[in-house]
């Protein structure tokens, strides 16, 4: 399949959502803006499908914008575009709700940024894109304006800004070291330059925040559930991938590897387990995202082919997680028992895929990387499926208890499409990405290896249903300092008023009056006159 691409297509893929977003501000369009959202990612999808040959140079924009694609990011771009299309469709019912236009506008801005992260070829564009996705997404988080959403929004914005700053500094160091702004050169320079380690650390933090790297993930379990369902879907499915993309782009091979492995694994297990203490299904999903992203980041840390394959894993996770979030929305809308059952069933399929059940996209994804990993990590990867299954089992349990019956029209088609994609896409891309025949994934060994953790996890989940863990507030590490300090610092004013002006003036008046009186009293001033003459005479005559 060859699709037409032109030199402007990458730019158009970014500008088009912006235009739609801007249109949302127009009075005539405002009410219908939500209905247009699904159109926004279409050029990007086209681009992803068309191939990697497209590139745009726009030297006048910003500090000179260059856009292009590489295989990994093409994959992510496609996934992102697809997810956003589906989520956009899922958002259509929100058109009736208040502030729809604002939501639509920032949706498009976030989308544009999200896409641009995968297209940017230079540091500045990348940063701009990252900032756009990062900050515009805040509006998606707080859209509901509930207390929880606003509180989550606060945490989100603080952490996001901190991340932006880290990124900026890291990118600047990189650009300086490279003497150029092209990402490839920057990555190369980071590996060799003296400032490299610092920059790598900063970048890891900056991207790690977005990608939910433990312990920088704290915002994620708060923010993702707070957003409206379609927004949660893209947040958890697509936007977190921006962080991943950043790491893949900028971290030199092997840089920060041990840290990423350690933190990634900590996240993979810890978040999954912590998910068990949550009641809100969206929160459980959010922790699952942290967990899954932990695994993917672990891959990045591991380096080599595993790292190369990370986008492949991410592709699956994005689609599946998007489906799961949409399903939560569907469940909330489900009216009848049958609808609820359908929802749950679909959710179970998607969850199984995430957990890596045999034949699922998730299993393929794991299979694709397992052989590339050192044995210990491979084991850890397998083992993580247990916890994932546990968490997702718990999710299903919580989902089943989520009730709503607000609307009859059930957008079940959309999560279904995503689930299907999550299953199909890894299969479709398998050969391209692993270089192995599809049969490899069907081998009994592979199936067995995929099955046992899921089974174990499922068993555990059943036990868990019986003996649930005590509920904990979301945000784990953040629960301690969550209290937003509204301390208005009091700074000492400059001592303009420290001295009483009136008193000073009075003192001055007194001093002057005293002085003048002294000069007048007994004609001291007049007496000084001949004395001055004599003094001058002395000085003049002495020629001093």
């Amino acid at each position, binding site marked *: 399949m060859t699709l037409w691409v032109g030199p402007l297509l990458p730019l158009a893929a970014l500008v088009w959502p912006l235009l739609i977003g801007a249109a949302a501000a127009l009075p005539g369009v405002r009410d219908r803006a939500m209905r247009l959202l699904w159109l926004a990612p279409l050029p990007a999808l086209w681009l992803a499908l068309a191939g990697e040959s497209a590139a745009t140079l726009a030297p006048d924009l910003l*500090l000179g914008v260059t856009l292009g694609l590489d295989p990994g990011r093409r994959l992510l771009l496609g996934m992102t575009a697809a997810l956003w299309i589906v989520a956009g469709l899922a958002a259509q019912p929100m058109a009736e709700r208040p502030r729809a236009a604002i939501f639509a506008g920032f949706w498009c801005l976030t989308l544009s940024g999200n896409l641009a992260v995968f297209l940017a070829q230079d540091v500045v564009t990348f940063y701009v894109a990252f900032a756009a996705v990062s900050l515009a997404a805040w509006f998606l988080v707080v859209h509901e304006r509930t207390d929880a959403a606003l509180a989550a929004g606060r945490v989100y914005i603080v952490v996001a800004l901190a991340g932006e700053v880290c990124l900026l500094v890291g990118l600047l160091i990189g650009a300086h070291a490279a003497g150029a702004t092209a990402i490839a050169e920057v990555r190369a320079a980071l590996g060799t330059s003296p400032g490299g380690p610092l920059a790598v650390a900063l970048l890891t933090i900056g991207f790690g925040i977005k990608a939910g790297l433990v312990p920088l993930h704290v915002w994620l379990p708060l923010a993702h559930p707070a957003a409206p369902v379609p927004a949660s879907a893209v947040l958890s499915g697509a936007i977190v991938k921006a962080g991943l993309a950043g790491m893949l782009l900028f971290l030199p091979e092997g840089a920060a590897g041990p840290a990423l492995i350690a933190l990634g694994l900590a996240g993979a297990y810890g978040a999954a387990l912590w998910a068990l203490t949550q009641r809100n299904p969206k929160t459980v999903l959010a922790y699952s995202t942290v967990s899954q992203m932990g695994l993917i980041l672990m891959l990045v840390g591991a380096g080599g082919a595993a790292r190369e394959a990370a986008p492949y894993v991410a592709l699956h996770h994005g689609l599946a997680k998007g489906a799961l979030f949409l399903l939560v929305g569907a469940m909330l809308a489900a009216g009848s028992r049958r609808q609820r059952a359908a929802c749950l069933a679909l959710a179970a399929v998607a969850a199984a895929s995430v957990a890596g059940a045999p034949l699922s996209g998730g299993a393929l994804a794991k299979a694709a990387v397992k052989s590339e990993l050192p044995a210990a990590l491979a084991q850890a990867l397998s083992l993580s499926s247990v916890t994932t299954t546990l968490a997702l089992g718990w999710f299903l349990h919580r989902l089943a208890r989520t009730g709503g019956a607000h609307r009859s029209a059930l957008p079940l088609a959309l999560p279904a499409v995503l689930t299907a994609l999550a299953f199909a896409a890894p299969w479709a891309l398998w050969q391209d990405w692993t270089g192995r025949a599809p049969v490899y994934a069907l081998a009994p060994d592979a199936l067995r290896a995929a099955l046992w953790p899921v089974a174990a996890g499922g068993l555990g989940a059943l036990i868990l249903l019986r003996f649930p863990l005590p509920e904990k507030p979301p945000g784990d590490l953040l629960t301690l300092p969550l209290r937003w300090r509204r301390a208005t610092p009091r700074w000492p004013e400059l001592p303009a008023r420290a001295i009483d002006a009136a008193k000073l003036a009075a003192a001055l008046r007194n001093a002057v009056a005293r002085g003048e009186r002294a000069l007048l009293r007994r004609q001291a001033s007049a007496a000084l006159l001949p004395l001055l003459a004599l003094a001058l005479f002395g000085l003049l005559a002495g020629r001093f």
Partner: protein
Amino acid sequence: MTVPLPVLLLLTSLVPAAVTFFLPQEAHRLRNALSLGGALLKVALIVAMLFAVAGGASYEAGLTPAPGLMLLLRIDALALLFVSLSAILWLLTTIYAIAYFGTKPQLSRFFGFFSLCVAATTGIALSGSLFTFFIFFELLTLSTWPLVAHKQDAPSLAAGRRYLLYAMPCSAALLWAIVWLESATGPVIFAAPTDFGTLAPNAQRAIFALLIVGMGMKAAIVPLHGWLPAAMAAPAPVSALLHAVAVVKAGAFGVIRVVHDVFGMDRMSELGLGLPLAALASVTILWGSVRALGQREIKKRLAYSTVSQVSYIVLGISLIGPFAVIGGLAHLIHQGLMKITLFFCAGIYDERAGVKRIEGLDGLGPRMPWTSTCFSLGALGMIGLPPMAGFVSKIYLGLGGLQSGAPWVLAVLAASTLLNAAYFLPLLYRLWFREPAPEVQGDERAPALVAPTVVAALGALGVGALAAAPVSPLAWATLLAERAWLP
């Protein structure tokens, strides 16, 4: 008769100033026509000159009233950078001010001094020698006072007093430095390298310090910044003038002249002057931001923000490296556009909704969408978020810091960004997310107030988004830096 271009440029605001003083209060139309006409003419002249100067041309006009005193006006690329900013913003501010004041009293005085201020700023921009610079610098000091105290109520007068309290000693320091310097070197001409002759290095350092004190007061460098937040008592157009068109900019421009043209980069490094100045600028950046956090009045918060932001310029200049200088110079323009947007908005909030304190902003966003959007854009730009202008400056300053071997600058920038966010985002939050207070009414039925604001906001957006375009401020700054560094 041919009037030299620099003089003509000066006259475009001097003549309106002189005539306006003598207009009766009721002559609204004539007064407005004068101000606008002068502003438009000036912009036109500048546009005409931009291309010629980009090609390397320069215009000069001068006279020598006394031996050793040289009044020299010269239009070079740096001068044009500043004068374009002030001219364009003057035009916007004039439109805004006409609408803002309507038929309030004492307008002839206001617009007279306003034009005089701009004339002084033009003079500062075009000054070709240190002495000329000082003359116009002081003219600016003086013509600003009546504007700061324009309302003539107690806070305004106190603000005016504080302004003079800072301005006078600092101009004395400046004068002292100039006299000291010129008595050793002869007239200091910006276009020619200064021959420091026998002046001892420590004397040179002292002169530099005094010059910076003199300029730094206007540029609101800590600890000489106290007047600026106090001056927020003045009406919004004056704030725009102080923060964007003229005053603080003149100070920053003065620092540029001192570093660039009086001392020169080589001597700066030789004497080790860059680092202390950069440190001072950094302290200012942080302190201004920290203080802004604590302010509950919008304009006061904006004022402390200016304290912080203007030192970006100083920081860039003091780092003595191409990128940093580009960043600093570009920020001269960028900060002007962003800050004028913010103050215009603050003025509209005050005028149309009676809101002065940040608590009052609650829920105003939807009611005053244009204003609030502009305000938001300006605020985001101040934080340095792309694609606003502030972002471009920050990139260049950061790179400049690295290039000049001062990586700690990145830390300063990072901290400042966070602080900026900390004091701006709550405002945006209030604007857009809070429920409006019932007693606050606001509307935007004042197109002449909103239009300049929108233009300024678009400008701030445009110079960032199109920073790499061949006619952007950044391009101009790059041109300057190239001329300075490339043989």
